[in-house]
């Protein structure tokens, strides 16, 4: 099974850019003041998920996040 990809919960994101600054794949962009993960580039390393101070990034497919 393919590894899950990180996904930003838009309603929670407060646009600090922390996830973007640490993403080793450059897979996250700020679009209209929300961080957005480019799934094709995400390698599921979990750095952004752990970095988000308010828990706005989770794994795709997790029930409470989609």
């Amino acid at each position, binding site marked *: 099974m393919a590894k899950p990809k990180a996904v930003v919960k838009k309603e929670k994101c407060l*646009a*600090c*850019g*922390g996830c973007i600054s*640490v993403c080793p794949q450059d897979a996250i962009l*700020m679009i209209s*003041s929300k961080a957005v993960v480019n799934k094709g580039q995400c390698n599921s390393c979990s750095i952004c998920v752990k970095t988000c*101070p*308010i828990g706005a990034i989770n794994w795709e497919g997790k029930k409470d996040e989609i």
Partner: protein
Amino acid sequence: MKYDAVIVGCGPAGSVTARFAAEAGAKILIVERRAEVGVPVLCGEGVSQKVDHFKVLEGKRWIAAKMEGARVFSPNGTKITLSAEYAGNETGYVVYRDIFDQELAREAAQKGAEIMLNTCAIDLLKKDGKIKGIIATHFDETLEIEANVVVGADGVESRVGKWAGIQTTLKPYDLETCVQYTLCNIDWGSPYCDFFLGKQVAPGGYVWVFPKGKDVANVGIGILASLSESGKALHFLDKFIATQPELKNGEPLRVITGADPVAEPIQSVKDNLLLVGDAARQVDPITGGGLMHAIEAGKYAGETIAKAVEKQRFDTQTLSEYETWWKNAFGKKLHRNYVAKEIMLDMEDKTLDMLADSLKDYKFEEFSTLSIIKALVTKHPSLLVKLTPLMKLARA
């Protein structure tokens, strides 16, 4: 449409760069992706009184409160008090960052800089391998903006440097991940900026309380991203507030997140491209403070651009004057504090308590890294081994 310099980002670093370049006659454009300068605020909003020396702000509207100093609380609550003149970059004023940023931008505009909002830089404009400006989107339009110099003042998440081949991705070890409430209805009347340390309080960082008035304060937390889990910063902040009788009945007026680079200084000039402010990691790795550095570096960057325009030379050699300038002014301090950060991260809570106990009655008349280390080592010879690398840097 061609400019002497196009600046990406209208925060303090971008606006101050623009101001000093425009004042000397350079034609400057600032592009800002947001719809309002300074909004949302992403900051603890503390700044040193040194800001007054730069004369880049008029009036007092940007000041929320004037501080008398800082207090640092070790894990067991031992308090060290630093008066304002010794408290470093972080105390002096607690500011309204939205107004602060807008005042800096207004001053830049008054000197002749142009500002474009809702404009997001997406790449460098290159011809024959040379940087000729930026490509940006403005709503559904794509614009090519030509400029002799490109300035990346695009903050912690900077992309401009990457486009030119400067490695700016941060290791989680070099980022503080932050969240902050502005709380009202609190009972925190002290004229001090307070910092709380400890692994149970803020792993690899600290909690701060910056008063903005008698019953309002910014209460925030930064934890090291390498020690973070999803949502941990917010969880720890809520836990801290619940334990403080003066804060726990507070109501939030605002919640914001932030990301603070606590890294080594990096390369800030490549060909005809400069990085300024958080984008250049001009942040104190111990305190996380970057506002004063952004303003100081912005001044050097603006003046360097003005000189380059005068000579009509936009090469690395001419623009490197900027990097030499800021690295001499505060780059060494940043490096020293990076080493100090590594030593502090390695310390157990009880070591921090012991250090705080040694320093609590210390008269900070001569406040320097070297004098603190000497005081500590005299009391605790066993610390000598740990602190030796720092001592060498403090002497340098």
